[in-house]
């Protein structure tokens, strides 16, 4: 991948794609889309980066350890959010019942734990995508 134009274009576009992905993740609860879609967009932006600039560079940006950690603790994050309910003495994965402030509907901070969970899931999906890509490409 030594195409100069491609690299330059990517350098311009990819950050925006990435940011868009984060936007979709973060606004999953107020607009169409959601953490999965957003996470995949983020992941794709990273995959595109690696494709264009070479795997090694991509790897350098995202070392395996980071990926493993994101994945593991991203998944654990979900569980931990679920535990909030238990800590509060209500069932697992409780949101409203757990007494979390649901906030003002339509705003970014609304939905209590939902947005937090969604963020974690999004990150996780993104890292999964990248991991899958790297794993398959490295063979």
């Amino acid at each position, binding site marked *: 991948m030594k195409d100069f134009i491609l690299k330059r274009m990517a350098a311009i576009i990819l950050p925006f794609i990435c940011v868009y992905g984060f936007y979709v993740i973060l606004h999953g609860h107020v*607009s*169409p889309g*959601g953490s*999965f879609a957003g996470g995949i967009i983020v992941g794709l932006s990273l995959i595109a980066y690696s494709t264009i600039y070479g795997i090694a560079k991509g790897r350098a940006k995202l070392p395996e350890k980071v990926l493993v950690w994101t994945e593991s603790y991203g998944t654990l994050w979900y569980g931990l959010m679920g535990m909030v309910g238990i800590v509060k003495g209500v069932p697992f994965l409780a949101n409203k019942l757990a007494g979390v402030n649901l906030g003002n*509907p339509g705003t970014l901070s609304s939905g209590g734990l939902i947005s937090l969970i969604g963020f974690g899931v999004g990150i996780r999906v993104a890292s999964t995508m990248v991991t*899958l890509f790297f*794993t*398959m490409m490295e*063979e």
Partner: protein
Amino acid sequence: MKELFGKLIMNYPYFAAAILFMIGALTVLTRSDLLKKLIGINIMESAIFLIFVAGGNIRGGVAPLLSKANSGAVYVNPLPSALMLTGIVVSVSVTAFALALIVRLHRAYGTIDLQRIAELRSEVAMDDSNHHT
């Protein structure tokens, strides 16, 4: 019979899903390329997604997203969509894993054609016993 066709036409998404399902099934059955098999399975899953999602639909309903534009409108059932979101992710996971296995098989046999693999394997089977230590 006429009644049947009438109902079928009325339920055209389901009908389409059934056809999609069969296409997927035939693909799985008749293609010896592993990737194509995988695609066949995805088609089949899509058929099921279609049934689900179509089942939740209401003619003239709007997407289940609360907004001022939609006030007073009939929302379609959000549950199937939510379920299918999960289903799609599952499908993606399976596909990913299957792809990985295909890669692995390609590495081992140099082909992803099932028929070739079978032929290769029958050759391998001859000296299989001393393969393991």
